């Protein structure tokens, strides 16, 4: 390989508050190389990209580009140095033409400059031709398919003289045919001397495309290897290979009646297809999978947000229709959404109001709010779940992440549900609150609730679940028993085995 790598990262550290997202990562990218970056959710891939593209500054470590050390990288200076990132969702202006979009990126902006339309079109045509894309420069971006938009992004990157192209899960929403088109372009890029950092969860793509692979785990690089020297099993071992250090509360409940039974449930709009599973009272069914596997989408189907258009949903043995959240609430299904900061807890509203938001029909007897009842209910949950707050009148935004999660949980426990769906309940929650939430969830199951626990935290989903459903590509890939081997879960999530041992 050439003497000076295109990109060299040494001992890169990035902290977000108390969370160490990168703990001293080394990484090299050579010219003409496709270098795959692999890791579980939260392993540090996104953070690494953000540092390299200048979006976030590292706390420690050095970045060297083509032998030149750089510091104080910003998005603008990164672009000037030839670093380009192609995201899953292209960031183009849908109402402008391809040529206009490329022009906006590449032409030096001066508000009063006259636009040379001819040159703009010609440049766009040349760039598109270079990557072999059959896209008209005059096409409106809105009319292009997702991969075509990605190709436009790549054309922009090339036009800007990019030497380092980062692709973040570019194939996540592509069909097989579109993938091949994209792969051809990636190979073309690397042949012309561009270094490509390729991030994907799909192992077969990595074997197909990459020269070397670096695996990240918990913010650390666990090794860089030539792809030829690896196989699926060895990659999975690198990705997972960690001790389950945390202690999880033991399962104490015997699973009872079937609460929820799904038969071949699908929803074309959200990509969920052919899901068959059962959840029993007193049981925690974990849902593992990688980002985009369809777990949240399934939860949204079960909560009536994107109603199912195929299959049967049975609750306590009766077939039910879930067309809206109101239906779901009426049937005793509760959904604690992921991303509580945005939609779980209303930050401006007092804690008490937040907790009673889903039970107005019960609390407002004759539609008349009894403040006393609301207050005592809120106090009860605050005590029961040990919410650390100034009182029921304090706004939701005044709480820490873990306590907000408890408020969100309380809102749904107040509905006295039969089935509780938890979507990433401990994401962004500190360790102490995390184990408290684990204990609460375990206790709820013991009290006879059916729980579906969606989590990207592999030790958590393995440690907490009575059974582990593994999803991928919008469907259930396997159901594994409690305390399964993390490798088996990861293998099922990646789709390398058909069915795990049941």
């Amino acid at each position, binding site marked *: 390989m050439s003497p000076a790598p295109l990109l060299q990262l040494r001992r890169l550290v990035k902290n977000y508050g108390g969370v160490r997202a990168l703990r001293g990562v080394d990484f090299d990218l050579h010219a003409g190389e496709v270098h795959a970056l692999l890791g579980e959710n939260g392993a540090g891939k996104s953070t690494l990209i953000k540092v390299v593209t200048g979006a976030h500054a590292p706390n420690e470590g050095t970045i060297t580009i083509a032998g030149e050390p750089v510091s104080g990288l910003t998005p603008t200076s990164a672009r000037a140095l030839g670093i380009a990132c192609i995201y899953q969702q292209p960031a183009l202006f849908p109402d402008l033409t391809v040529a206009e979009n490329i022009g906006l990126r590449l032409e030096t902006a001066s508000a009063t400059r006259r636009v040379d339309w001819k040159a703009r079109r010609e440049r766009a045509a040349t760039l598109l031709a270079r990557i072999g894309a059959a896209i008209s420069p005059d096409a409106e971006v809105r009319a292009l398919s997702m991969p075509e938009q990605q190709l436009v992004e790549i054309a922009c990157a090339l036009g800007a003289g990019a030497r380092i192209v980062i692709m973040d899960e570019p194939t996540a929403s592509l069909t097989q045919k579109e993938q091949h088109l994209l792969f051809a372009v990636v190979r073309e890029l690397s042949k012309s001397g561009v270094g490509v950092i390729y991030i994907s969860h799909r192992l077969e793509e990595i074997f197909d495309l990459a020269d070397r692979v670096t695996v990240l785990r918990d913010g650390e690089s666990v090794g860089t290897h030539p792809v030829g020297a690896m196989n699926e099993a060895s990659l999975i071992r690198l990705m997972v290979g960690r001790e389950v250090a945390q202690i999880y509360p033991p399962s104490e409940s015997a699973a009872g009646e079937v609460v929820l039974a799904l038969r071949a449930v699908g929803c074309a709009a959200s990509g969920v297809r052919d899901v068959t599973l059962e959840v029993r009272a007193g049981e925690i069914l974990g849902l593992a999978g990688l980002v985009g596997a369809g777990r949240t989408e399934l939860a949204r189907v079960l909560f009536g*947000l994107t109603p199912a258009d195929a299959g049967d949903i049975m609750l306590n043995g009766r077939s039910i229709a879930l067309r809206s959240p109101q239906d779901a609430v009426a049937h005793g299904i509760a959904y604690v959404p992921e991303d509580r900061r945005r*939609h779980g807890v209303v930050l*401006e509203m007092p804690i008490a*109001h937040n907790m009673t938001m889903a039970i*107005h029909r019960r609390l407002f007897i004759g539609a*008349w709010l009894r403040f006393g009842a609301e207050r005592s209910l809120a106090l009860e949950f605050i005590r029961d779940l040990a919410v650390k707050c100034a009182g029921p009148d304090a706004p939701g935004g005044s709480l820490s992440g873990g306590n907000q999660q408890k408020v969100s949980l309380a809102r749904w426990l107040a509905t006295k549900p039969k089935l509780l769906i938890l979507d990433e309940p401990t994401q962004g929650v500190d360790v102490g609150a995390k184990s408290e939430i684990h204990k609460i969830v375990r206790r709820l199951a013991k009290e006879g609730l059916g729980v579906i626990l969606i989590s990207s935290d592999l030790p958590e989903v393995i440690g907490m679940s009575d059974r582990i459903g593994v999803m991928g590509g919008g469907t259930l890939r396997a159901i594994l028993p409690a305390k399964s081997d993390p490798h088996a879960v990861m293998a099922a999530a990646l789709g390398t085995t058909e069915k795990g041992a049941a």
Partner: protein
Amino acid sequence: MKRYFRELSVVAALGAVLLGLAIFAPAFFQPQPLLSLVTREAPTLVVACGMALVIICRQIDISVGSMFSVCSVCAGLLAARGWPLALVLPAAAALGAILGAVNGILVAGLRLPSIVVTLATMVTLRQGLNLVRQGEFVNLPDSVQWFGLSQSAGQWALVVAALALLIALGVAMRHLAIGRFVYAVGTDAEAARLAGIRPQLVTFLVFVFIGVLTGLAAMMNIAQSPQVQPLSGMGLELKVIAAVVVGGVAISGGRGNLWGAFAGLLLLACVAPALTHLHIEAYWEKAIQGAIILLAVVADGVRSRKGGGNT
């Protein structure tokens, strides 16, 4: 206390203005002119209550002025045909409900931005009314003016009715589930949806409701004069939006209450008579009202920046 700081500051400003008037222009407090002033503002208060709900729900309705005119003229025509008041009043409210429902369907059903929808209905209704009526006044039978009561009894009736409505709505917003829904939807519609509330339905109902209130307000207005002017609602939307915003209802939704809107309305309504009594030229009225609105908006802006939107 801290939670209602914004409302209390408006009340304090109002108190200061009234105190100033008591010292420098005690004539302001003569009962009969004061009652007339309050009566004139009674219909505005009713519409302002509706506007407060709409804005708390993170929407806006600028068609209220045109709706007001249309309801006034239609109610006047019905009364002129000899319909008894007991029928004209519900008819005006029903017409308002229908007009509000049109806005509601477009905003909540088709998810169009309310400012554009109500701008369109504002212009359409106003021009439609001009076209049909050619600016003609409607002469009312005597039974309509002051509801057939004596002037002072009629004035009192209007003021009491408007205040009763304000109190009923203010309590309802606090004690009825739908009131809480309006706040929830205005703060975070997606969170409300995830909590099993139907944001689109709530939004629709709020638009219908402001229509009903506007219809009632139109009745309260035509009862004050022997004729219906077809342009009686011109500029009403700005007046009520200003009152609501001055009263501490956040234009970004989810925050504020009817009591604040009431105080805001009184504060703005005091400006013109105060100038008269203090012998200041009336040209200053709009400038001072504008300054009050600007002050309120700036105060909200500073506040939300400091609080990070959390408090």
